[in-house]
């Protein structure tokens, strides 16, 4: 009995393995990036400053996510909803600032797509874009558990969905830190 308790919930375990598979997706992308960079015709450019800002935003969102989980476990549902809302907003701000980064590059006539594009810029778009999709997936997950906190009549105090969402959210945060450092110093 006691040993059984220590085992992760199967859903949590599925999530961990799934994160491994997301890591492989980005590992594939970043190693392709390294291979491509080693070949001819590579355009070097500076990342726009706004990416620093978006990094700050996603770091902050991890803090609010953690606060939301803490408040949920303390049954402070009002504050929990507040922090979840804040996390969702910060997630969306992150997405917007990333988009601003892309536009800044285009404004500096570094094409990300189209015939004049260099794969250096296209890689940034694809890698950061895929990450944005993963952030939006997290936003949708948070929105669903947020709405459930309102709609379910009988109070539902199973922390599992919130825990799963927070593991995923922190993962997406750390993933961006990796990508940012990678693009900043390798790219």
């Amino acid at each position, binding site marked *: *009995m006691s040993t*059984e*308790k220590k*085992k*992760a*919930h*199967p*859903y949590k*375990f*599925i999530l961990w*393995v*799934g994160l*491994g*598979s*997301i890591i*492989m*997706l*980005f*590992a*594939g*992308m970043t190693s*392709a990036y390294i*291979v*491509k960079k080693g*070949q*001819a*015709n*590579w355009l070097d450019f500076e990342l726009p400053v706004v990416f620093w800002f978006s990094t700050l935003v996603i770091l902050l969102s991890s803090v609010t996510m953690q606060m939301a989980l803490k408040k949920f476990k303390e049954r402070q549902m009002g504050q929990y909803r507040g922090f979840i809302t804040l996390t969702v907003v910060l997630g969306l701000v992150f997405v917007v600032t990333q988009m601003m980064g892309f536009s800044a590059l285009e404004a500096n006539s570094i094409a990300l*797509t*189209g*015939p*004049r*594009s*260099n*794969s250096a810029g*296209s*890689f940034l778009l*694809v890698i950061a874009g*895929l990450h944005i999709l993963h952030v939006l997936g997290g936003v949708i997950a948070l929105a669903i558990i947020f709405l459930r906190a309102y709609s379910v009549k009988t109070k539902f105090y199973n922390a599992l969905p919130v825990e799963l969402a927070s593991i995923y959210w922190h993962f997406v945060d750390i993933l961006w830190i990796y990508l940012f450092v990678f693009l900043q110093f390798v790219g």
Partner: protein
Amino acid sequence: MSNEATIIEDVHVKSVTSHDVHEHGDHGHHEHHETFLSKYVFSMDHKMIAKQFLITGMVWAVLGGLMSVLFRLQLGYPDASFPFLESLLGKWAKGGQITPEAYYALVTTHGTVLVFFVLTAGLSGTFANFLIPLQIGARDMASPFMNMLSYWFFFVASVVMLSSMFVETGPFSGGWTAYPPLSALGDASPGSKTGMDLWIIAMSLFIVSSLLGGLNYIATILNMRTKGMSMTRLPLTIWALFFTAVLGVLSFPVLLSGMILLIFDRNFGTSFYLSDIFVNGVGALPNEGGSAILYQHLFWFLGHPEVYIILLPAMGMVSEIMSVSSRKPIFGYMAMLGSLFAIAALAFLVWAHHMFVTGLNPFLGSVFVLLTLLIAVPSAIKVFNWLTTLWRGNIRFTPGMLFAIGFVSLFISGGLTGIWLGNAALDIHLHDTYFVIAHFHIVMGVASMFGMFAGMYHWFPKMYGRFMNNTLGYIHFWVTIAGAYLIFWPMHYEGLAGMPRRYFDFSIWESFKQFGELNKFITIVSMIVFAVQILFLMNFFYSIFKGRKVTSENPWEANTLEWTTPIRPGHGNWVGEIPEVHRWAYDYGKDGKDFIQQTTPVGADESTH
């Protein structure tokens, strides 16, 4: 117990929400509450999902096999005209002769469908779903809902892939590997237009399906085993399916990343894979600086593990069936397990042996040669252990057992040519010839198909509560194994002579004219083998409804847990408590007893394992 309880709740919540009054014990009686839709269509029962994968896989196997017969007709009879081809393929076979475009479309679709839809989804989708919960002692998968999604993603992928055959410009025709630029430029060939778009969509959906399934298999095996089922008591089927799932979860995302870049090159004008290209009728393309080789790296990083994703489930099932039908413990259980692990690990380190002639640095190539040849070690261990399991066994030649033995034969024959091809120096001569075709069809295609047949004959009684007809099974086996060798053995010689693969017509080619009669022979045999597979399907479907009924829970006198369930288990598998496991799965012929099931407690005079 806490785990089991959550699963029981899951099963309750998800499948029988409308019937809330249930005792924990009566899972065997769920069926009659379920509607047709929830039982047969949107089922969350792993056994039903397994059958859905199996039947969908069969449909694809027939289509994919038929395609191979059609393009073999062209290779065997390049000058003849078959009016029925025109009625079947329409404008793709004007005057009864397949057009070159149709030939390439058939070859491409045959490859894609057989590798992914039949031997990945049809094989591991079927048997991972069916066997994992039954053999580890679980009521269902970790997430039955994700499991259902996994099938339906596969189904939609199938529909999209099928629809690509009916578009005006035809399905994709640039080979199952979808190398750019043929796959990246719509203007490159008719099949590169809508057909390729649909191919990418189908494959992306397929990858999602594989990932959903794989995550579930891993989580189920590691978290949901019944009491006493330690990892080293697991049947080798489960170990093989576990490594298969790990390979899939780690390698399919990399293929996805390669295909995402491909989508950008196709649709958004980027230059990941494209550089210095001139297309007839279009002119020079503006794309600069891309590398087509980059795609090959990303593709084969999945592509090689994919070979083992196909092969490992077959190995696992063969090990299990061989032990049961030899009435002997599997020889070297830990060595079998270790070699599965070694193969799975090496699978990630050998992808560039598909790229020896792409201008790969020879020093890098020699590392890949070494790692590739290393695979011979665990493979030889496995073969040795299968043969020693058979040695002095009290063999029961059931159709399942015959196919298991046939698997070993094919694995040896095809594995040996792998040692040839794994050498970069030999590969300069042999690459892209019929030698390669012969090698991978025997070792990966036919061998895995044999593993699948072995599994189907062996677990048919558990799936449908009836037996398949033995006589038809024997005919099926002998014609198929003789046919497989007659088809692919001669191709080795053609390949050694330099006959290249993916050519439409050899009759006008002075060097390879001499193989005309041989090609005709291969075509005739392939038609016979195809006909025998239809016989197998008739046996299969007839037996579902009219086969000899299974009268005991354990018709093969096997040790594993699936044979402790009722003859036709309901959703939840066991009536009452899940049995506890006290020993490993291979106590055959021990202490004068023919077999001792895993649920039998260890006697006072026995040591545990």
